[in-house]
């Protein structure tokens, strides 16, 4: 069992473990996920996808499908009235493939019918003739220019270098390695789903959808539908997890098009296999790194080359690339660097956002390198990291100053202080051994290892993006109403926002209004950004309301409003004796204020990769203890110790949930999770073949939160969502290396990597 305990709460303000307002509905089954929604007269929608990674579409004949009783309409590229493509950064992905399909699973047609089974049968009746082409599956072929363009925009999505400092610098220690990261799936449990309801004139549509970013969806959808944005209304349906996979469009446009064509509500819901094809994944990557260091282990220079396989369409590949290469150094001082980074288009499945966003890949490489430096310098894994630990004020390889609080050394030291678990007992229960209930191992054959990983992660968006969030705070009849378009995907912003309001206003009755596009954008629930951004917006809106309350109370009681503060649930005069309950003071008052939170501006990188491209950073250390069965190549992760830089803890229970959940996903990438691709074809699109950590794989997590108030953050708190899943992966791999004394340079580590 987890050894981390959570304190019980008092009033649900900032800093206490407020419980989820949607918790009771979620445990009873009453909570409405998007897939639970229905409408009168509703039809089901379904998508036909390409079986080929690369092919020319010779012809499409939908007549047999249309003739099937129960089928109402079939749509293809010809039925897209507006922009034929969409995309987050580059609009290069077709709503439906027209001339070519560029990845296995690319949508070619969609249809609406009276029953999911009718849909399935009708899809099989759409006749498509393909001319199958040889797919581009090796990113190096694209870089070399040896493969003809598979898309009008070419095969290179983005190339960026970082050149900093003395390019000829070297040192007595030189270590290098080539590292490979497999394709991970977000594998949220709540499959893609949407319900589109057309208006009676066919000139508008209401879409209930599980997404991370309502306003970005709105812009892309309305362009494809050729409808003014005000005629498209998006409402957040209940979201069953996201982890990056809901940042891109999946079924949104298809569902709206079918609803408008059929003139009836359409429900679409992917199955698990379709979900593997319907959303982007974590980029597989190949990374070469060479570190030059002093004999005492201090880093002098890093050379690196990154190749991210973006798959068939751009999605967020350009930003993932920049995140990867700008985190080459990890949380360590480094003055000199030469980095070459590529994001490549191939006929593999498209890749985009997943928790950790490019930094996961970089971290596996730089942490593997740190252990090599340690060996060469005769240092421990802890000491090599401490001697290089980054501090506030350091200059990054992009030339950007580290302005964030950077308690790297403290994260490492506090993690190191966490006690190691007891050794494996000779009579340990088989479920505790690698292989578990398979009864494959005997305790006497098991070897234990310990490994480290430390990481730096940028927070919010980068490269000049005006990354803002909007919130409205209203008070009416003593109740606070909060309105925002911030996607609640499970992370708990619906818990945090009322905590903020209670702390700022001293009122306890807080209602979160429906999350939709009837207010300005909140940006995406990604990049560890919503506590900072939407939290800042809610805080700002509540403060504006509080100011008006103080004005009102000051006027009524002849006190300078500047002397008034909130203390608990009262308003008090700081230098007098006046005191009134907030509830009483606002009697009859009705106030509404909207606030937009913008973070400080960032810049694009120049041709040498120099520029203040990131907003802020967070840090974390992980120590992994593993038991390995060397003969069968099986791993049991025993314990993860971690100390994470969080700025300030706003809700200890939620924070711990993020840490434990992120660690499980990082564990998955370390030893089990990979979408296996052969010649552009996905070989394991199911939960039978794509393995996820279960309760029996979950390690003991011992977590410490490092609280050093971040002055740049509106609430002093850093984003905490991504860091937990980043350096835990290299820590686990390092622990396996430690156990079996073998170099491992690829994740996930497979049994054959260990035992053969």
């Amino acid at each position: 069992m987890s050894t981390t305990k959570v304190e019980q709460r008092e009033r649900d303000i900032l800093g206490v473990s407020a419980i989820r307002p949607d918790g009771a509905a979620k445990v009873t089954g009453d909570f409405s996920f998007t897939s639970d929604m229905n409408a009168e007269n509703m039809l089901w929608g379904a998508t036909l996808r390409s079986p080929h990674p690369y092919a020319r579409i010779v012809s499409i004949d939908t007549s047999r499908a249309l003739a099937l009783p129960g089928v109402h309409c079939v749509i293809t590229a010809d039925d897209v009235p507006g922009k034929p493509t969409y995309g987050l950064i580059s609009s290069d992905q077709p709503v439906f493939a027209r001339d070519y399909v560029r990845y296995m699973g690319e949508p070619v047609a969609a249809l609406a019918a009276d029953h999911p089974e009718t849909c399935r049968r009708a899809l099989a009746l759409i006749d498509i003739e393909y001319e199958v082409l040889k797919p581009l599956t090796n990113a190096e072929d694209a870089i070399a220019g040896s493969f003809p363009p598979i898309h009008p925009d070419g095969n290179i999505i983005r190339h960026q270098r970082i050149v900093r400092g003395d390019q000829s610098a070297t040192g007595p220690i030189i270590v290098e390695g080539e590292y490979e990261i497999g394709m991970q799936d977000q594998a949220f449990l709540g499959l893609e789903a949407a319900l589109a309801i057309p208006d009676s004139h066919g000139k508008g549509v209401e879409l209930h959808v599980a997404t991370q970013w309502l306003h970005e969806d709105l812009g892309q959808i309305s362009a494809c539908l050729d409808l003014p944005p005000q005629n498209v209304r998006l409402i957040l349906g209940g979201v069953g997890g996201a982890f990056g996979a809901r940042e891109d469009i999946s079924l949104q446009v298809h569902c709206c098009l079918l609803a408008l064509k059929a003139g009836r509500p359409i429900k679409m819901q992917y199955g698990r296999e379709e979900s593997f094809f319907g959303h982007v994944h974590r980029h597989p990557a190949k990374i070469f790194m060479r570190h030059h260091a002093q004999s005492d282990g201090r880093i002098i220079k890093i050379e690196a080359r990154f190749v991210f396989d973006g798959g068939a369409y751009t999605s967020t590949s350009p930003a993932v690339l920049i995140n990867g290469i700008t985190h080459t150094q990890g949380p360590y001082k480094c003055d000199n660097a030469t980095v070459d980074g590529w994001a490549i288009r191939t006929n593999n499945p498209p890749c985009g956002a997943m928790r950790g966003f490019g930094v996961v890949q970089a971290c596996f490489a730089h942490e593997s390198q740190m252990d090599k430096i340690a060996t060469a310098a005769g240092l421990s894994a802890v000491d090599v990291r401490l001697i290089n630990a980054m501090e506030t004020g350091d200059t990054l390889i992009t030339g950007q100053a580290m302005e964030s609080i950077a308690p790297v050394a403290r994260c490492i030291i506090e993690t190191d202080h966490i006690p190691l678990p007891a050794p494996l007992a000779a009579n340990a229960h088989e479920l505790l051994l690698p292989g578990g209930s398979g009864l494959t191992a005997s305790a006497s054959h098991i070897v234990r290892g310990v490994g480290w990983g430390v990481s730096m992660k940028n927070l919010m968006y980068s490269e000049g993006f005006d990354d803002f969030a909007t919130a409205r705070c209203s008070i009416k009849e003593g109740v606070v109403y909060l309105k925002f378009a911030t996607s609640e995907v499970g992370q708990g912003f619906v818990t945090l926002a009322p905590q903020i309001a209670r702390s700022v206003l001293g009122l306890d009755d807080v209602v979160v209004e429906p999350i939709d596009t009837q207010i300005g954008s909140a940006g995406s629930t990604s990049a560890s950004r919503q506590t900072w951004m939407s939290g800042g917006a809610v805080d700002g809106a509540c403060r504006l309301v509080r100011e008006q309350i103080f004005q009102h109370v000051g006027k009524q009681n002849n006190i300078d409003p500047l002397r008034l503060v909130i203390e608990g649930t009262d308003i008090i005069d700081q230098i007098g004796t006046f005191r009134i309950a907030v509830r009483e003071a606002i009697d009859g008052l009705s106030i509404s204020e909207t606030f937009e939170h913008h973070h400080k501006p960032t810049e694009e990188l120049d041709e040498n990769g120099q520029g203040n491209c990131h907003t802020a950073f967070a840090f974390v250390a992980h120590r992994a203890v593993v038991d390995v069965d060397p003969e069968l190549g099986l791993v049991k992760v025993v314990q993860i110790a971690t100390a994470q830089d969080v700025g300030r803890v706003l809700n200890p229970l939620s924070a711990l949930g993020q840490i434990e959940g992120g660690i499980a996903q990082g564990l998955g990438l370390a030893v089990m999770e990979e979408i296996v691709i052969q010649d552009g074809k996905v070989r394991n699109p199911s939960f039978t073949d794509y393995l996820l950590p279960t309760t029996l794989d979950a390690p003991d997590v011992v977590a410490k939160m490092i609280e050093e108030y971040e002055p740049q953050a509106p609430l002093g708190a850093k984003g905490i969502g991504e860091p937990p899943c980043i350096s835990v992966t290299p820590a686990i791999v390092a622990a396996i290396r430690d156990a079996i004394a073998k170099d491992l340079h690829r994740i996930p580590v497979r049994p054959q990597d260990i035992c053969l």
Partner: protein
Amino acid sequence: MSMNEFYTLNVNGQSMQVQDSWVGESLLYVLRERLGLPGSKGACEQGECGSCTVLLDGQAVCSCLVMAATAVDSTIVTVEGLDAHGAELTDVQDAFVQQGAVQCGFCTPGLIVAIHHLLDENPQPSELEVKEAISGNICRCTGYGRIFAAVEQAVAVRKASHTS
């Protein structure tokens, strides 16, 4: 497609008519789409994730793998039918909320049913018995730590109510 099946299921203590259905429909589909009980969730269609767990004659099963029409002679209990003994939430449900075992909540109903099944059969499970009993319920958000804490709370509450 034949849509003329009529049968009756015993769900949460009630006799429920299933009308005009296709015989190939899973119990999960019928519960969700025909009987107005969407608490059970579908997330893998292969019995791998446990989100659709219901009790069929007292056994925890994946309702996505059960053909609805074959369950006519069985007693079915879904998350909506768990007995909270007059309270708003069952002890397991309350523990999930209090201990932070719920994030996105999609796996939650299946876990709640599976843990009720475990504790009804074995009120004092060991740590490993808990882990094994719910190893067929995948949660992608929590990393399971808070779920274990919720089971601990539910066990403690049951023990206290037993001894008092």
